[in-house]
């Protein structure tokens, strides 16, 4: 049986490989012409509308685009860039620290400098810092997201509790919620990327509140994680766990399960990015969900929110159709393009004055952004992807008693110092 299967298997593999080789490259150039633009995107579910609007605004133009999940996209785009088959316009993540990030792709010269485009100068500083590499803008970042406590309004009303705005009130809130049998927040730490969100929300206020230049100091080697208020933030995270702010067994609970808990009122809320609101509404269309800053100190006026640029678009340095590529990127950064994107994605536009009507669930985030009370997601300015991965698995290890906060911060310092 085994011997007879082998040739079939080989034939199938061969056929598969040949087909993959034929379809692997993008269609750039195959039907060239000045009216065709190639695009690879991770904005599944929202880029479709933008492409449609772009084609409508530019009659005769055809956009050939592919969408894929982040993991798959990162593998694909790297292969395409190094083999010269990448599309004209592609999704690029802000800052550094992931395989498809601005620094990573701009450094070997794969991206076209976009500093001369009209929107580049209008970007707020927090966005600029992650859209640029060595002072030049490479990433057309159209939207931003924030991390905070998302409350289920109906569950809150039922429990008779209100969102806390100081650290002391937060702990009291957790105790009161637990006493009523509905823990304050759902935590889906089985998916390791979730582990960082509570910590980021606490780090924003405790680390960046007293020192907005913490990243510059880290880069200059004048600061470390272990010798900074990162220790305070980590300690507060564990205090929240001990106080019963989260449901039982966060390590056995995955992202989807945590959404279900918050959506159905089995917890009063969830500490997540604003993107979770749309998902909560899918599970509970009648629910009302509001994002508020997570307090980490007792002075509400000093609280900061981690808010960061989402993935944007870069132009291939060797674009087959550069003119059209720039046109597309400028359309994305126009009020029309930006609003189309963020409305579908549930975030906020990156540039001011787009006339975007903010959803009431995000009004606090919008206020914080307007008052410059936000800091980028911490990993976006780290020198390599390893620091974040060490943090993610380290947090799981701390929650399961396999590691300690001191050990984790030392490991993160070691990875940080290893550089890019």
């Amino acid at each position, binding site marked *: *049986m*085994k*011997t007879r299967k*082998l*040739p079939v298997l*080989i*034939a199938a*593999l*061969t056929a598969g*490989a*040949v087909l993959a080789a034929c379809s692997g490259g993008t269609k750039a150039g195959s039907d060239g012409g000045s009216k065709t633009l190639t695009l690879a995107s991770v904005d599944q579910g929202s880029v479709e509308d933008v492409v449609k609007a772009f084609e409508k605004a530019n009659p005769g133009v055809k956009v050939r685009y592919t969408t894929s999940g982040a*993991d798959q996209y*990162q*593998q694909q785009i*790297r292969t395409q*860039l*190094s083999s010269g088959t990448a599309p004209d316009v592609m999704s690029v993540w802000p800052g550094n620290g*992931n*395989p498809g990030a601005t620094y*990573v*792709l701009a*450094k*070997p010269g794969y991206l076209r400098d976009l500093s001369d485009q009209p929107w580049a100068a209008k970007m707020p500083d927090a966005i600029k810092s992650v859209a640029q590499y060595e002072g030049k803008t490479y990433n057309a970042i159209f939207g931003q997201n924030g991390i905070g406590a998302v409350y289920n309004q109906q569950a809150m009303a039922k429990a008779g509790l209100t969102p806390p705005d100081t650290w002391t009130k937060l702990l009291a809130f957790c105790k009161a919620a637990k006493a009523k049998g509905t823990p304050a927040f759902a935590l889906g*730490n*089985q*998916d*390791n990327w979730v582990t960082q969100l509570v910590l980021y929300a606490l780090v924003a206020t405790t680390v960046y509140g007293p020192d907005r230049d913490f990243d510059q100091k880290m880069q200059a080697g004048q600061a470390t994680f272990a010798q900074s208020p990162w220790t305070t933030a980590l300690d507060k995270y564990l205090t929240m766990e001990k106080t019963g702010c989260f449901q*039982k*067994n*966060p*390590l*056995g*609970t*995955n992202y989807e*399960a945590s959404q279900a808990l918050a959506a159905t009122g089995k917890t009063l809320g969830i500490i997540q990015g604003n993107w979770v609101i749309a998902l909560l509404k899918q599970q509970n269309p009648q629910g009302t969900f509001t994002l508020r800053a997570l307090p980490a100190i007792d002075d509400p006026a000093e609280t900061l929110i981690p808010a960061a640029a989402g993935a944007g678009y870069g132009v291939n340095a060797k674009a087959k159709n550069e003119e059209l590529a720039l046109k597309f990127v400028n359309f994305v950064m126009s009020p029309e393009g930006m609003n189309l994107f963020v409305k579908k994605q549930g975030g906020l536009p990156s540039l001011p004055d787009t006339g975007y009507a903010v959803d009431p669930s995000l009004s606090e985030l919008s206020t914080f952004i307007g008052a410059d009370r936000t800091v980028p997601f911490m990993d976006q300015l780290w020198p*390599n*992807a*390893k620091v974040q*991965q060490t943090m993610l*698995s*380290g947090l*799981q*290890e701390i*929650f*399961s*008693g*396999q*590691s300690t906060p001191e050990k984790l911060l030392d490991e993160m310092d070691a990875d940080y110092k290893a550089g890019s």
Partner: protein
Amino acid sequence: MTLAPHEQLPDHDRPPDAEPVPKVRRARTTPPWWFALPALVLFAFVVLVPSVRGVYYAFTDWDGLDPDFSFVGLDNFSAMFRDADAVQAIWHTLLIAVSITVVQNAVGLLLALGVNSAIRSRNVLRVFLFAPAVITPIVTAYLWRNLLGPDGAVNSLLGAVGLDGWRQDWLGSPQVALWSVVGVIVWQFAGYSMVIFLAGLQSVPKEIHEAAAIDGAGPVRRFWSVTRPLLAPALTINLMLSIIGGIKLFDQVYALTGGGPGHATDTLSTLIYKDAFTLGEFGYSIALAVVLTIIVAVVSTGQYLVLARNERAVS
């Protein structure tokens, strides 16, 4: 790994004394090796050459993107033994492979003996027991990820029958998670082993069993002295398949736990994936893949040699 079934078939059709007619002889001749040449060339071109060329990158610091990389000799390999995560992953890989091999085959054999008996519902049972093996591993993993959650079906069931003390955070506890993964894989593939054992069991001639029974052998003795030796080929296939599958294990682990909590369930394969595609350390990741290839080759060859000798000894 490949069996040549015709070698084991008795020559029923050849008259013992007559000179075989040329037609029959031609049918039995092995085809010339160069018939396989086109396939071999294609295989070499598509699989072998790229793989061997890929090995070169294990000796570089390539990040998967930058065309400007340098040769670093054996650095990636020596780094591996200083990397606690890698050493732990190798250990997990072997632990998983061995436990899956033992448990899956033990369960598979018991199931095969069960459904090979005269019980009435045996055909239905065979279908049900084999069914999990035809589901995509990623689907079963997602299914079990929910069943094994803190409030999932498994814990609810244990609570309902009064076994509250047995409730666990199946995938969230570093002590239990690895065994939960093993359990899920055994659940899925025990039926697969069962089918192979069943085929072996059904080739055991009834007459020998009857003869042994007449000689006064009980069921246990008959299993040990009659069935077991005749099952040797089935056992070889099953052990080979499960140990290779266990060492290469990726999708179920990745979907069930992502290697977590922390690194508690990381195997060589999940580490290779993470190092390459999350961290962009392609050189290091390929070095890990080379080590994985060597482990698979050594273990499977060693196992095959031992089992083949065993087969010859009992037959």
